[in-house]
C-alpha cells in the first residue's frame, strides 16, 4: 500500500500493539498479548473506513493505538504526513485537536458529576480554544448540531436516554472541529430504533464538515451501510480490505465469507434460502496465536502451508487486499 496519495489523511504502517503479561513474585514478563500484530492501511480524506471483526480481534486497540492512547510496540502512524509516534508532549497534544474519538458506552464515557456544558466544553478549555462566554455559545451551538435542545446544557448525563447521551459524546468529539473521528462501536449499546438516529446524525455531520471516520464495529450490516471501504480483522491482523460493495459481493477471504454468511438477515425468505458457513470452535487466544495463518484453526479450506507460512497481505485486484494463500480460488 504505497500509493502516496495527496488525499491520504491517515497512514498506518505495520502497526503492532503488544501487551506484556507479567507473572510470579518478581513480575517477570512471561509473554505478551498480541492484540494488534502488524497491520497497514490508509484512510482517505472525507471517507469512512469500516473496521470490523469479532470481540478480541484488536479493532478497538487499533483505534486507541492510532490516537496514541496506547504507545504502540512498533510501526508508524502518519496523520497529515506527521508521524504521531515520534511526537511528545505539547506537539502530540496539538495534533490531538484534529483527531477525536466517540466511545462505545454512552453510560460509562460521560462523567456523571459533570453537566453537559462542562462535558462538551472541557475540550475547549483543555486546548484553550475558547474562553468565558464564548465557551457557553460554542456548547449551545454544538448541542444544536447534534439535535439536542441547548437548554439542556445545565443537566447531568443521567437525565438523558442512551441515544441522547451518545449525541453528547458526538458533540464533545466535534468541539475542537477535528478532521478525523474514530467511532469505536458508537451504536452497539443502543436500541435498534435509536441506532438509526445516531448513524444518520454521523452521516449528516460528515457531509456538513467533511469529516473522515474510522468506524469500528462488529455489526457488518451497519458497517456496510456507513463505510466506503471496509477492513476485516481477525486475531490482530487485517485479513481483507476493499471497497464496501466489492467486499460484500466478492469476499475473497474464507473468514470474511463465513462472517458475512453468519449475519442474520431480517427477511425470512432470504434467510431460508441462504447457505450459511458455520465456523467451528472459537477464536484462539491472542496471547498464543496459531502459527502461520491466524485463521487456519477454524478455516474450512486450510492446508499444511497455512500452518507454516503467514500469508502475505497482497493486492489481488485493484484496491482489493487479502491475506490468504488460496484467495485466487474465489476470484
Amino acid at each position, binding site marked *: 500500500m504505497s500509493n502516496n496519495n495527496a488525499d491520504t489523511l491517515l497512514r498506518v504502517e505495520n502497526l503492532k500493539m503488544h501487551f506484556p503479561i507479567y507473572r510470579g513474585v518478581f513480575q517477570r514478563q512471561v509473554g505478551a498479548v498480541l492484540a494488534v500484530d502488524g497491520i497497514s492501511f490508509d484512510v482517505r480524506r472525507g471517507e469512512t473506513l469500516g473496521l470490523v471483526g*469479532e*470481540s478480541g480481534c484488536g479493532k478497538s486497540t487499533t483505534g486507541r493505538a492510532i490516537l496514541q492512547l496506547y504507545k504502540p510496540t512498533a510501526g508508524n502512524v502518519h496523520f497529515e504526513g506527521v508521524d504521531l509516534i515520534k511526537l511528545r508532549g505539547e506537539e502530540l497534544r496539538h495534533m490531538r485537536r484534529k483527531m477525536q474519538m466517540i466511545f462505545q458506552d454512552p453510560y460509562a464515557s460521560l462523567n456523571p458529576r459533570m453537566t453537559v456544558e462542562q462535558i462538551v466544553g472541557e475540550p475547549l478549555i483543555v486546548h484553550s480554544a475558547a474562553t468565558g462566554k464564548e465557551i457557553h455559545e460554542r456548547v449551545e451551538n454544538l448541542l444544536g448540531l447534534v439535535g439536542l435542545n441547548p437548554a439542556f446544557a445545565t443537566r447531568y448525563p443521567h437525565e438523558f*436516554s442512551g*441515544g*441522547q447521551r451518545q449525541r453528547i459524546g458526538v458533540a464533545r468529539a466535534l468541539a475542537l472541529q477535528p478532521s478525523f473521528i474514530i467511532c469505536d462501536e458508537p451504536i452497539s449499546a443502543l*436500541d*435498534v*430504533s*435509536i*441506532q*438509526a*438516529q445516531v*448513524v*444518520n446524525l454521523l*452521516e449528516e455531520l460528515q457531509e456538513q464538515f467533511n469529516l473522515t471516520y474510522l468506524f469500528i464495529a*462488529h455489526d*457488518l*450490516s*451497519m458497517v*456496510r*451501510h*456507513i463505510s466506503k471501504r471496509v477492513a476485516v480483522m481477525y486475531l490482530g491482523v487485517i485479513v481483507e480490505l476493499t471497497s464496501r*460493495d466489492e467486499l*460484500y459481493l466478492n469476499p475473497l477471504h474464507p473468514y470474511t465469507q*463465513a*462472517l*458475512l*454468511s*453468519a*449475519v*442474520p*438477515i*431480517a*427477511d*425470512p*425468505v*432470504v*434467510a*431460508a434460502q441462504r447457505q*450459511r458457513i*458455520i*465456523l467451528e470452535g*472459537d*477464536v484462539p487466544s491472542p496471547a498464543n496465536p496459531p502459527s502461520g495463518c491466524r485463521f487456519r484453526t477454524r478455516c474450512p479450506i486450510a492446508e499444511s502451508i497455512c500452518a507454516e507460512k503467514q500469508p502475505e497481505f497482497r493486492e489481488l485486484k485493484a484496491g482489493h487486499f487479502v491475506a490468504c494463500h488460496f484467495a485466487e480460488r474465489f476470484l
Partner: protein
Amino acid sequence: MPDLLLDVQGLETTFNTPDGVVHAVNGVSFGLKEGETLGVVGESGCGKTVTMHSVLRLIPSPPGKIIAGKAFFFGQDLLQMSDEEIRHVRGAQISMIFQDPMTSLNPVLTIGKQLEEPLAIHLGMSRKQAEERSAELLSMVGIPKAKDRLKDYPHQYSGGMRQRVMIAMALSCSPQILIADEATTALDVTIQAQITDLVKRLRDELGMTIIWITHDLGVVAGLAQRVIVMYGGYIIEESDVLGLYANPSHPYTIGLLGSLPRVDETEHSRLFSIEGAPPVLYNKPTACPFAPRCKWVMERCWNENPMLEPVATDHRIACWVDVKTGRPRS
C-alpha cells in the same frame, strides 16, 4: 382452546419504583401451540422479558407485582399456583436460557455440579445417573470430550460454550417449552450462528416448543414461525413470520424494519429512523403508546388505545391507521 400449550390472557405487571409505579406489561395475551417457535421482538423496556418472567413467576415481589391475568399451562393457571407447585414447572416443564452466560452460571461450582442439580431435584436421579446424563447433554450441545469437561469451572469455557451449557441445562429435564431470552445477544456473529444452528437442530430432533425473545429482527426471521412485536408493554403486532416481514403493518414494526441496514443492501439511502425514545409508563396509557413517535398519528390515536385486530389471516395489529392509505382503518 385445548390445542394451546400455553395460553396467556390479559397479563398485567407493574413495578413500584421511587419515581412511581411503572406499568411494564399492560394486558398481554398470546397462545403458544405445541411444536412452534414463537419470536417475541421489541426494544429494551418494551416488556418482553417481564412478560415471560411473569409467566414463570420470576418477578421479584416487591417491587414487582402481577396485577391481572391468567397463564394456562396444561389447564392449570401458573399465576395461581403455590410456590411449591410452580417450582415443579420451572426448569422441569418450562425452562429458560438467559442472555448473559457469564453471570447465569455459578463461578465456584463445576459445570458438572450445575448440570446435575436440576436432574437430582426434578427427576430424582442418583449422583451417578445424573453424571452420565450430564455428559450426554453436553455432547448433545456439541461440547467435545464432555465427560472430562464436566470437571471444569465456567471460566474455563468460552462465551459460546457457556451458552451451550445453559442450553444443555435448560434441556436436561426435557421441558415442554424452552424460553430463550436474548440467548445470542452477548455473542459474536459466528458464535451466534453456531448457537442458532444448534437450537434449530435440537428443535427438529426433539420437537421442542420455543419462545425466542430478542431485539434482533434478523435472528427471528431465520428461526421463528410466528412473531409478536411488543411496545410499551403491549403486543402491537402479531403475525406468522412471512406475513410480518413481507407486509409489516404497524408503524412501529415498519419503522424498526426500516431502521435496519441489510448486509445485502446495494443502494445507499438514509436509514428510516423513529424519532424520540421508547416510553417509561408511569400511568397505564389511555392513548396509543406509540403515538408520540408515530409518523401517521391521527386525532383518535391520542384519545383511544387501539386493540389487536386482524388485518389478514394470522396477522393482527393494534393501530387505528391503515398505513398504506394513511387513513383510518375501516
